[in-house]
């Protein structure tokens, strides 16, 4: 029998069927060798973590009976309890097998599942074999494993090191890999995976015609060089760092962080080494002579939700911001749920509350108000909150300089005139000449002009003053309008005097415990300081990306693997801690992680290594039994098949219909959405409170540029599982719902894309049109039976619209396509709509 202990990914199933049924239905992320050797990390720790750590784990405060099971304690209690060497006399075994509710562990009132007989057997074996602990795998240093040797057959199949690790598991599991996918599938898979867009007809044709041996590698390199690559890679990153366009709390006002997004896109395209990519985000502002790019990158620290001034107490807001920042660093860079230690020592990972606040101390020194404030002024309209840097174009810089110069001169004149008026107050009728003689300024006194001259001068000066005021106002307006156009990036900046940090008792901002110094958790490598004294945020950033850090590289390669294969080698890509899942291919993960570090954290090389593997190139067609046996493709015995993300689905429709505009970077845009959505949730005084769709090219840009209101993100995205961007998301789920079906059937831009493509087809209609359409959207050619089905649908649509001409006219209104009969255009539109809705169109296979 296969290994049968509880794996986290089957949680829903567990809920339904309970332990015993699930045990032979679930595909595990790993399996045992026949030798039944028990490994603590793989076999025992997950059970302990799930059932026991809550009371017998790292958290000292909640520890019961002074017993910890996450590691051996110094007093020998743990060892005594385990009785390593003989399960028959082990108290642990007695406790987990007892039928006495007062004795059995976990206790019934803990609501933890009792151990299954198989799990108990595993504990018995472990105890018999000596009950040896291992350090937790993800916290141990990464060592490059040997690439496994394969037999002749495996050797023939394997193309690179990845395949060796994968094939070894195939052999152990007794499964066969699938043959390579055909070229059409491969290029669509590659294009979607590396650029988020389907291959263009030209790219497809070129690749199909290329008979050279390295045709595949050429197309891989081509897509890695495409600037679409950076946009696609950025999208995943933006989920991870919760990038959005509003502050997310209370008023949910506009907040502009788009220069950060542009920087992320450019960094992926330039293939900025990942260690620098991380360092610049965490502490770019602290680098000597930091560039605009590095400062912009430090805006990572400003991406959290932030309340606007008025209701919350600023000290609470401050604490929330910093906690959010630290939690994000934990999830995004280390795959650790450090946020669990806000209130108490972590229940599962060796992070104490004190250590959390030592991390907190690195991030609580932002030189900014903890709340956004002010409802007027250009900062408010620009969605900015100091500190920020301006990033004008050369032209904007010049325009601004000119305006500022004119403004300075006008202000100067204005000031001078005002001084003159102050010195020459207008005499009211009762005043006497004597006042004038009392003027202190002798020079002026000696030349006292006649009464008439004074009034003439006064008049002209008054007129000048007015003119200047008007000019200043108009120049100020012009400057402010220009300012609204000038990009500016919110950045991180240290206060000159460091804010002290304390442990917050139970996470309460107003219940401070001991003061703490900056530091990193003890179970991770020591922090090195560039200068003696106090550690800086830059030291922390360097520590994160030091080659010795056991988590950073593992977490990162795992996420990129997830991006290409649908599921990470560790499925819980947001959590590589004790509650995370054991990797399906631990050695492969470590191999990739060390190769990644050795390459100088070269992301494009890593992506290339993965897509060049034979593992990646397998076909995804399989028997229903194979799908049923390994639904998530953890064994990698076929090509992965999963639904495309929301953005890719929308971008694909715009791309294949030729509507997509391909500018890079810039501010967020608002493609149309159904009316009234913002109003139904927004505060009347929130800015902006009404959704006004953009027009023209702006609505045809890639979805990575879509304006993201946290209070109500674009429904075209969220219906297809895009997150609200309120918190860090390392992996999206993929559901399949009727609301998604409605979206793809009826949404405005989906329909516009269908119409546009239909017009193009009708203008060039030929016997091949059906095949062209099918190929454009799915990358495949229809076989004869598919062609017949589509033809028959087309003719049904056409004859129905012929008998309902008004309906046809309504459908194709404003579609363009001069001279095309409404009925024909309507029929083709519906056929395109049908193909867009195919499962294979919204799926990457």
């Amino acid at each position: 029998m296969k290994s049968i202990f509880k794996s986290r990914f089957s949680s829903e199933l567990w809920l339904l069927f309970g332990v015993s049924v699930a045990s032979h239905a679930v595909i595990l992320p790993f399996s045992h060798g026949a030798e039944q050797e028990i490994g603590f990390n793989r076999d025992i720790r997950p059970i302990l973590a799930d059932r026991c750590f809550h009371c017998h784990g790292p958290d000292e405060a909640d520890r019961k009976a002074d017993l910890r099971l996450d590691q051996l304690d110094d007093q020998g209690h743990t060892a005594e309890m385990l009785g390593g060497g003989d399960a028959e006399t082990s108290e642990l075994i007695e406790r987990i097998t007892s039928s006495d509710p007062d004795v059995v562990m976990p206790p019934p009132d803990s609501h933890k599942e009792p151990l299954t007989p198989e799990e108990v057997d595993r504990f018995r074996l472990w105890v018999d074999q000596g009950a040896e602990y291992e350090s937790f795998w993800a916290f141990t240093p990464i060592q490059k494993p040997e690439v496994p040797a394969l037999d002749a057959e495996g050797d023939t199949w394997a193309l690179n090191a990845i395949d060796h690790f994968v094939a070894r598991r195939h052999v152990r599991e007794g499964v066969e890999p699938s043959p390579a996918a055909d070229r059409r599938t491969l290029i669509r898979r590659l294009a979607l995976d590396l650029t988020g867009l389907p291959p263009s007809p030209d790219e497809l044709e070129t690749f199909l015609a290329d008979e050279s041996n390295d045709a595949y590698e050429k197309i891989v390199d081509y897509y890695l060089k495409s600037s679409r690559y950076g946009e696609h890679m950025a999208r995943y990153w933006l989920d991870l760092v919760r990038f959005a366009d509003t502050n997310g709390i209370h008023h949910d006002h506009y907040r502009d962080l788009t220069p950060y997004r542009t920087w992320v896109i450019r960094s992926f395209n330039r293939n900025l080494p990942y260690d620098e990519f991380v360092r610049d985000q965490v502490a770019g502002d602290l680098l000597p002579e930091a560039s605009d790019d590095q400062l912009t990158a430090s805006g990572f620290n400003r991406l959290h939700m932030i309340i606007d001034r008025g209701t919350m107490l600023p000290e609470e807001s401050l604490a929330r911001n910093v906690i959010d920042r630290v939690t994000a660093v934990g999830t995004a860079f280390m795959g650790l749920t450090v946020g669990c230690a806000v209130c108490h020592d972590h229940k599962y990972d060796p992070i104490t509350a004190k250590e959390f606040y030592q991390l907190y101390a690195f991030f609580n020194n932002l030189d900014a108000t903890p709340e956004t404030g002010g409802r007027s002024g250009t900062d408010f309209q620009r969605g900015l909150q100091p500190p920020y840097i301006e990033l004008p174009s050369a032209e904007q810089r010049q325009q601004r300089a000119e305006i500022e110069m004119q403004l300075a001169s006008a202000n100067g004149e204005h000031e001078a005139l005002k001084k003159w008026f102050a010195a020459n107050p207008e005499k009211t009728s009762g005043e006497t000449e004597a006042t004038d003689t009392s003027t202190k300024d002798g020079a002026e006194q000696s030349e006292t002009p006649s009464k008439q001259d004074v009034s003439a001068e006064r008049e002209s000066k008054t007129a000048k003053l007015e003119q200047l005021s008007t000019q200043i106002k108009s120049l100020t307006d012009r400057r402010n309008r220009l300012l609204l156009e000038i990009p500016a990036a919110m950045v991180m900046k240290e206060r000159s005097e460091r804010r002290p940090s304390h442990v917050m008792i139970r996470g309460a901002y107003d219940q401070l415990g001991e003061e703490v110094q900056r530091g990193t958790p003890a179970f991770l490598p020591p922090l090195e300081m560039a200068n003696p004294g106090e550690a800086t945020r830059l030291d922390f950033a360097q520590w994160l990306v030091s080659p010795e850090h056991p988590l950073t590289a593992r977490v990162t390669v795992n996420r990129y693997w997830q991006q290409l294969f649908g599921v990470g080698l560790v499925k819980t890509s947001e959590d590589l801690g004790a509650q995370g899942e054991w990797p399906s291919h631990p050695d492969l993960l470590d191999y990739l992680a060390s190769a990644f570090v050795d390459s100088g954290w070269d992301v494009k090389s890593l992506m290339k290594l993965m897509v060049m593997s034979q593992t990646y190139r397998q076909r995804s067609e399989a028997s229903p039994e194979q799908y049923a046996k390994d639904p998530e493709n953890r064994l990698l015995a076929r090509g992965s098949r999963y639904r495309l993300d929301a953005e890719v689905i929308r971008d694909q429709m715009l791309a294949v219909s030729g509507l997509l505009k391909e500018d890079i970077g810039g501010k967020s845009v608002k493609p149309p959405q159904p009316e009234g959505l913002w109003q139904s949730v927004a505060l009347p005084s929130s800015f902006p409170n009404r959704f006004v769709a953009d027009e023209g090219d702006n609505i045809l840009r890639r979805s990575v540029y879509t304006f993201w209101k946290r209070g109500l993100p674009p429904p075209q995205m969220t219906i297809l599982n895009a997150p609200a961007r309120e918190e860090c998301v390392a992996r999206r789920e993929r559901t399949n719902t009727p609301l998604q079906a409605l979206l793809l059937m009826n949404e405005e831009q989906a329909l516009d894309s269908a119409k546009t493509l239909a017009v193009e087809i009708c203008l060039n209609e030929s016997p091949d049109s059906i095949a062209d359409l099918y190929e454009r959207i799915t990358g495949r050619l229809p076989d004869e039976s598919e062609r017949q089905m589509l033809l028959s649908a087309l003719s049904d649509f056409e004859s129905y619209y012929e008998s309902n001409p008004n309906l046809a006219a309504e459908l194709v209104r404003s579609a363009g396509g001069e001279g095309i009969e409404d009925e024909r255009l309507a029929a083709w539109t519906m056929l395109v709509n049908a193909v867009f809705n195919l499962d294979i169109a919204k799926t990457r296979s």
Partner: protein
Amino acid sequence: MKGETVVPSALDQLLTRRQLLQASRMGLGATALGTLLPQNAKAQTKPAKAKHVIFLFMAGAPSQLDLFDYKPDLDKQFKQPLPESITKGQRVTAMTRGKEQFVVPTMFKFNQAGENGIWVSELLPHLAKQADRLCMIKSFNTNAINHDPAKTFMCTGSELPGKASMGAWLSYGLGAINRDLPDFIVLNSAFWTGGTRNVQGLYSRLWGSGFLPSKHQGVKFQTNGDPVLFLSNPNGVDSTVRRRMLDITGDLNRKHLEEIGDAEIATTIAQQEMAFRMQSSVPELTDLSGETQEAMDLYGPEVHKNGSFARNCLLARRMVERGVRFIQLFHRGWDHHSILPKQLRGQAYDVDQASAALIQDLAARGLLDETLIVFAGEFGRTVYGQGKLARDDYGRDHHPRCFSGWLAGGGIQGGMSYGVTDDFSYNVVDQPVAIRDLHATLLHQLGVNHEQLSFPFQGLDQKLTGVEPARVIDEILS
């Protein structure tokens, strides 16, 4: 149409295709699996008293002092400083910090209603007539003092975003009753009479699924346009065309299912068919032309306005009839920091007759017993005033330590009042009801043990009631 059949419909709602596949490998047919489901669902551990919940969320926090929590002695304390023995250095909002706190009594009269003489403000005359069906809770209390975290706390059990909302938990734990409608529907009032000054925002996380699969999130019905986003066919596509389109799509999908072997394609086919059915079932649900004049009148004149709270109450009743599990109404405009008397009057007008009608209507149709109605905001309001501090013109700040609301139907006792606050409606002195206790009670009435409805995420078995101990309020169960 009245959804009584829990079983077959739950299949595509509750089970992922992976589970279906595994189930079929175990030799369980779909029917067998279906019948297996409710018993085996870990969530449902005891017989349910109720099947549906209608949660009337008063976003912005109504004043308990002016509506429910009668404190006649305060009349003599007008403009007296609030004793420190009462406030005990409690956290206050940024609006109150550093300011003196002066008592302002309510200007409204209270009357005793129903057989047990429950005190109700004169602003709620219709609701007063339902007093024998109401369980008035005076001792709700919460941790948060600001709207956003407090609303998130009430709706998801946590102040921080990312957790699953009440309706999502029920959808996850119990599954759908009617497969042609969403099992969790949200209706926001499009307008309110209390003006636009005292309004707070809403966020989709309040009905989100958090860490649960997103199919469990609430479906927000729109006031204008399609009630369900993208429901209607575009102009130029009628149901014949749509049917033909789904036929060709379905035929090709079926062919691909055979070739590729991935059962996800079967799910796509099923969901497209359900979408098609929703194109009829949702308009049928929202079409009020079949309602009698008498039924409409019960809800008051506002029922004729699209997007009114009254209209949404009527829709909620229709949803219960059709088997929707959890319906949440959001009515905004309660954040009365100033000119409370005037604006509260308007808000009370919005909700009084409509919510009373909802109780009556469900009772008349025999549905009140199986439908739990909850009426509550995110916190209460302070006894000390803000704004003008006149007898008839004042405002009140946020107050988390105690607030009032009511429950009706769904196996809850009527004609009772639960929980006691001090003379200033400042602290709970007896029978406290924390948010998690309300959640636990709500789940309990639907047959769910709050300790056992959990989902593993980020290393914890997440629960609606969180990590602190929660208590089912047994004393109010009938």
